């Protein structure tokens, strides 16, 4: 059902955990639907210096969370905002069709964390340009 890449990330999730003094936190989904993820970021020089995740959900939800932290780490905020759900699924060499919507929320959580950082630091469009 899942690609080897998904199973590998499920088995050994990268960057799992919380950042207590995170600069930005994004949480999407909810436990009622069966998927919920939180992404924590540390920002330095407009780049993602550290990133961690916590996820309640199926194998796909955990693997996409892990993958998005790998894709985003070290990227500028502008670059990280361009990471899409599709990019995450592609990096995992595909997801089962039914999981594309319900469990592929990791990019949304990343964007929410970045938006949270920008809001807190009263920054906005200039970073995205």
């Amino acid at each position, binding site marked *: 059902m*899942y690609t080897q890449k998904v*199973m590998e990330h*499920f*088995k050994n*999730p990268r960057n*799992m955990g919380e950042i207590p003094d995170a600069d930005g936190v994004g*949480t999407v989904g909810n*436990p*009622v*639907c*069966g*998927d*919920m*993820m*939180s992404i924590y970021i540390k920002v330095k020089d407009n780049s993602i210096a550290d990133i961690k995740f*916590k*996820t*309640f*959900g*199926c*194998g*796909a*939800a*955990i693997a996409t969370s892990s993958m998005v932290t790998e894709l985003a780490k070290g990227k500028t905020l502008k670059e990280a905002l361009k990471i899409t759900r599709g990019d995450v699924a592609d990096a995992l060499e595909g997801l089962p069709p*039914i*999981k594309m919507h*319900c*469990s592929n929320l990791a990019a949304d959580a990343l964007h929410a964390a970045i938006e949270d950082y920008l809001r807190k630091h009263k920054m906005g469009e200039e970073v995205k340009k």
Partner: protein
Amino acid sequence: MDHIAGKPVDSRVLEAMLPYMKFFYGNPSSIHLFSQETRQGLEEARTKVAELINAEGKDSIIFTSGATESNNMAIKCVAYRNKDKGTHIITSSIEHMSIINPCKYLTTKGYKVTFLPVDQYGFVDLNSLEKELSNETILVTIIYANGEIGTIQPIAEISRIVHGKNAYLHVDATAVNGQIPIDVKKDGIDLLTLSSNDMYGPKGVGALYIRKGTRIEPLIHGGGQERGLRSGTENLPGTVGFGKAAEIAKNEMHTESERLKRLRDKLIKGLLENIPYSFLNGHPTERLPDNVAVRFSFIEGESILLSLDMMGVAASSGSACTAKTLEPSHVLLAVGLKHEMAHGSALFTLGRQNTEEEVDYVISIMPDIIRRLRQISPLTPKELKE
């Protein structure tokens, strides 16, 4: 430990079937000698299935292609034949889809269907049953035990209530047959669905018991096989295998079910005692011998199954993420579980091949699996953080 999804064919069953694939090919309906062996094999199988459920005679058994067909036949063919008496059908909210969907279909054909609520253990609400029954009610269809929660319904009691209003009682015994003794006379059952694979027979065969005198229409019109109710040349190897499986089940059920109950209770105890925030789904004692249905707070069922699979253990779940829909199982919601609790369910169904060592192995690996997933989950409460 996912026997609910499929069971291996017993080697003795396979042996009984082989001659009907290799040598005996006559059509049971023919006159000549070739047909005698097959006719005899078919009728012996019918007798064995009838004996398993203490039916009044072998002719009350109609062979079908499986439990789904039997359920469809019981509901639609009784409804069509008794439309002159009424158009009301009662069922429960924890039925298999092969009951729910025929019932829903009938609502588009002028029938009214009532879905009875169940309590937290999954027992059908008998007060509601009494209240909903009317002179318009032609059929009540109740699952003997739903395999997702394992709770065994008080069928004899249900039958007394149903027959008090002169409706027919159909019971779907798919998850039950071969595990606990079924007595259609004592329990007062008018129609009963049986499945071959669920008692280690071949897939693609089932039966519907129909009490003599029950008003029912044919399901498949044709050459008049199966008392004219289900035409078509019989699946000989399948029915012979089903018969053998029923015979073995009847002889070995008592010993095997006692063994399974011991393993079941050991597994339940081992999981609930060693894992905090774990709960049993269904009733603790009035439950199927093979059924261990548990739920774990703060995590999701599919990730439990994947983790078990990596350790060589097959199990299933009522979680949305393992199904084709995004909703958790309707059975788990019907017993009153919130969505987030239903999502964390895991279902182990034990079988003849499972040993005590395997149960011990699952008990030994589960705490680490649950702990790891809870570390990943943001829902872990403070008291669980180590």
